[in-house]
């Protein structure tokens, strides 16, 4: 079956995807949050207290992480209702920083020493993919429902949606809070994989990464975050394997001429993607992708057209 490396790749991919979905739900109602890493932190610490401090079981920890992060999400969501765009970014960013400060100073959970010896959950991968199946089914249904349409309407034109009878306050709060609950679960799963978290684990870089998953993949269908997370998560790994592909070229081919040998050596040297270069390449690909498809790699429109082509024109 899977070796340890492959398994850990799949585990962190799954956690990242849950985090991406946690960003995607409020984003559907036009709310752009840089607080999802913070909600992961809330979930990680809440679950850590349940399992490590109270010695209760992991499923209860997972459940608690969703509930606590969801409630905190509701509290952050209220002030978030009144503000938009860059100010909402700042508010959620500030929230993330508050979480970090609490983690850094709260003695009960280890303060600056970090939250240590969280029990490792051996079968965490099953929980991760179980949560993902649940979340994907949720979005699958949502995007075919009246509530889903209302969310797109709010995203497009909040004031127009409101005079069409949509209760934008409730729907935005719902999206923000449930999104936070998803992030809380991602944090809990992460903590019980790594067994250690501290104030730096859930920082701004993670928050931006989560945002990128959705922006690169596309924010108009739940397929977007899946594609975005897949591309961005596996891209650095793929770059690393380019050299291995080169090594498959038979040596006799390159030895046939001096020029080829030199070219091969130069390319081999160039593809040294173990270090910083990997991240530079990653950044370049990101920029190119945003120029090529600023609306994201997949869109709802594209999928609808594809669907019609294959299924035929249904009413």
């Amino acid at each position, binding site marked *: 079956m899977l070796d340890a490396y492959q398994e850990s790749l799949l585990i962190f991919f799954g956690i990242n995807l849950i985090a991406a979905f946690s960003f995607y739900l409020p984003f559907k109602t036009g709310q752009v949050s840089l607080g999802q890493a913070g909600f992961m932190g809330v979930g990680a610490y809440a679950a850590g207290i349940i399992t490590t401090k109270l010695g209760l079981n992991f499923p209860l920890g997972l459940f608690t992480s969703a509930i606590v992060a969801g409630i905190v999400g509701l509290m952050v969501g209220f002030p978030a209702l009144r503000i938009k765009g860059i100010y909402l970014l700042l508010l959620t960013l500030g929230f993330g920083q508050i979480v970090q400060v609490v983690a850094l100073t709260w003695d009960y959970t280890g303060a600056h020493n970090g939250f240590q010896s969280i029990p490792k959950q051996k079968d965490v991968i099953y929980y991760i993919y179980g949560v993902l199946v649940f979340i994907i089914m949720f979005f699958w249904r949502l995007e075919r*429902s*009246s509530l889903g*349409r209302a969310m797109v309407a709010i995203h497009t034109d909040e004031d*127009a949606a*409101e*005079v069409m*009878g*949509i*209760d934008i306050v409730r729907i935005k709060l719902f999206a923000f809070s449930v999104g936070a609950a998803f992030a809380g679960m991602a944090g809990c799963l992460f903590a019980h994989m790594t067994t250690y978290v501290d104030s730096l684990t859930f920082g701004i870089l993670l928050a931006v990464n989560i945002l990128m998953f959705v922006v690169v993949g596309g924010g108009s269908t739940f397929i977007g975050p899946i594609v975005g997370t897949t591309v961005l998560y596996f891209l650095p790994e793929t770059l690393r394997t380019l050299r291995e592909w080169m090594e498959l070229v038979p040596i006799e081919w390159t030895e046939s001429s001096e020029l080829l040998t030199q070219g091969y050596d130069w390319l081999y040297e160039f593809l040294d993607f173990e270090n910083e270069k990997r991240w530079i390449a990653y950044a370049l690909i990101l920029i190119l992708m945003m120029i090529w498809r600023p609306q994201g790699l997949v869109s709802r429109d594209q999928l609808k057209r594809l669907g019609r082509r294959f299924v035929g024109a249904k009413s």
Partner: protein
Amino acid sequence: MSAAAAPILELHGITKMFGGFTALSDVHFSVEEKVIHAVIGPNGAGKTTLFNVISGMFGAEGGSLAFKGQAIDRIKPHQRANMGIARTFQNIRLFEDLSVLENVQVSQHGRHFRTIWSAVSQAIFHAPFSKGSQEIEMEDYAMELLEFLGIAHARNTNAADLAFGERRLVEIARALAANPAIMLLDEPAAGMNPAETENLDEILTRLRDEKNITILLVEHDMNLVMGLSDYVTVLNFGEKIAEGKPDEVQNDPDVIAAYLGTDEEL
């Protein structure tokens, strides 16, 4: 219309300021049920602002509003919509990423799902591959409205991809889907060609006579207004300067003066 019936909408001294600028000044009038009531006036008279106040997008600095005899000043925009006040926008504001059918369905949402929980449970708690009876009912009704307006053929087209005249009709369909008692139509004929305008004339007449909907109509096309309306209120610089039957208003010296020097014809 019978004189005894209570007005469906009453405006008492509505005043709306933007900074130091008075966009509406002490505007009083009533709208009788099941009539087409036009609000006219030169550019910048405050007609759209009036609609924004009635639909709740703007709060007013003074005065009060009553809908079916009940004060609605403190009622939120989405609740006003669900009580039966629907509107269209002068500068078309469709949900561009949604299809025509979906645009119309959006304004059925509030009426079908009073609470967030009913909306959530409709969304997630039923068989994954079926639409569910409620969804089918909503779709059927939306299709009925699209057929009524003659745009059923465009149901799967994205709102962004429609011709201008059709976009105006989708605005009307979307307002209708909320099952309104009164519709506020902000220049529905703007940008329409004569044939489209004629079609619109017929649609508005049918809305009043067959669907018993009261229409508050802002429109610059005077042929349409004078031919269609039962009653006309005239605004100028945020003040009501006249009201009455179309022919009374057309011959009112204040109204003629207000339009003098504008490029519009009464």
